[in-house]
């Protein structure tokens, strides 16, 4: 490796600078604006439940029969405290919190208003209709633990 100061001619340095500026200018302003706005979804109070299973992504295609391929989609989100399992039905989303507990589930769509549903004592809840765009679920357990799923698009 050469040292930069010695290795780069003035012409090369100027060309590198031109490319660096061009690379930034190639990025549309709206792309930058959307990236900045993503920070509004910052939520420091809730623990993230990450997507740990998605039947669409993780199911083994070679093993699935026609019926299995047509079966409903299942997603699992896991945090340090709990697991949220979701099944995508034709008209609703059915979920369960494990370990079983009551909780307030808030559906947070990326655009649109939030809605709440209650999870019963065995942790089951149902969301209808199925959210159209990207959304995530915020779960406040009876014990006061806040959990939020990653973004979901169905």
């Amino acid at each position, binding site marked *: 490796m050469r040292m930069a100061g010695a290795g*780069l001619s003035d012409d090369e340095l100027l060309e590198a600078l031109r490319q660096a*500026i061009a690379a930034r200018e190639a990025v549309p302003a709206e792309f930058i604006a*959307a990236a900045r706005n993503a920070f509004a979804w910052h939520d420091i109070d809730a623990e993230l439940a990450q997507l740990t299973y998605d039947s669409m992504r993780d199911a083994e295609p070679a093993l699935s029969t026609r019926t299995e391929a047509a079966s409903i989609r299942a997603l699992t989100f896991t945090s340090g405290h709990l697991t949220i399992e979701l099944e995508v039905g034709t008209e609703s989303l059915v979920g369960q919190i494990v370990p079983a507990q009551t909780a307030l589930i808030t559906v947070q769509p990326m655009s649109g208003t939030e809605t709440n549903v209650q999870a019963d004592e065995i942790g089951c809840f149902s969301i209808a209709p199925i959210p159209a765009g990207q959304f995530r679920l915020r779960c406040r357990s009876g014990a006061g633990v806040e959990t939020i799923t990653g973004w979901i698009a169905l």
Partner: protein
Amino acid sequence: MRDDPSVIALVARVVDGDQQAWNEIVERYSPLVWSICTRYQLSRHDIDDVGQGVWLGLVEHIGKLRQPAALAGWLATTTRNECLRVLRAARRYDPDGLPAEDLMPPDPDATMIEQELIEAELNAALRAAFAELSQPCHKLLSMLISDPPPAYTEVSKALDIPVGSIGPTRARCLGRLRQSPHLADFLSDAAGDVGARGTTR
């Protein structure tokens, strides 16, 4: 660069909820995300989709990064995964049902990601160094890198300096750029790549 302390500081501020620090991260790394998307030949709509996935993912994960200094690497890998996700989704919903191989552009391999990463970090350092140059140097170099490059007589007229002093001023300004702390650490490793890049495009 990988162990840039300024990135570690930015990440810490973002974790504390600092929107300005977030904006700086976006400013620095959005060209990396964008350029990887263009390598996958995604449509503009799909690129926006990928961008959303990448930045929302970062909002979620930034407090958990094992090595905050490796943020650029995390972004590059996540962008690649998001691009592949979008391409897979497009294939699934393709109405003509073409075989996957016909629809999927060849997956640019990890080498491409590594190249984009090195280039993006160098570019970010160059832009940071450039932004801190004195006003006269900034103006002169801005003119000299414009496309098409202007004649020295034009530069002389626009900046009101004699044609004869443009060459020496250019050299002095590039010398200042070279000495920037942003580049001092960085270029010692990447100099070979910069030189190579200059000749391959």
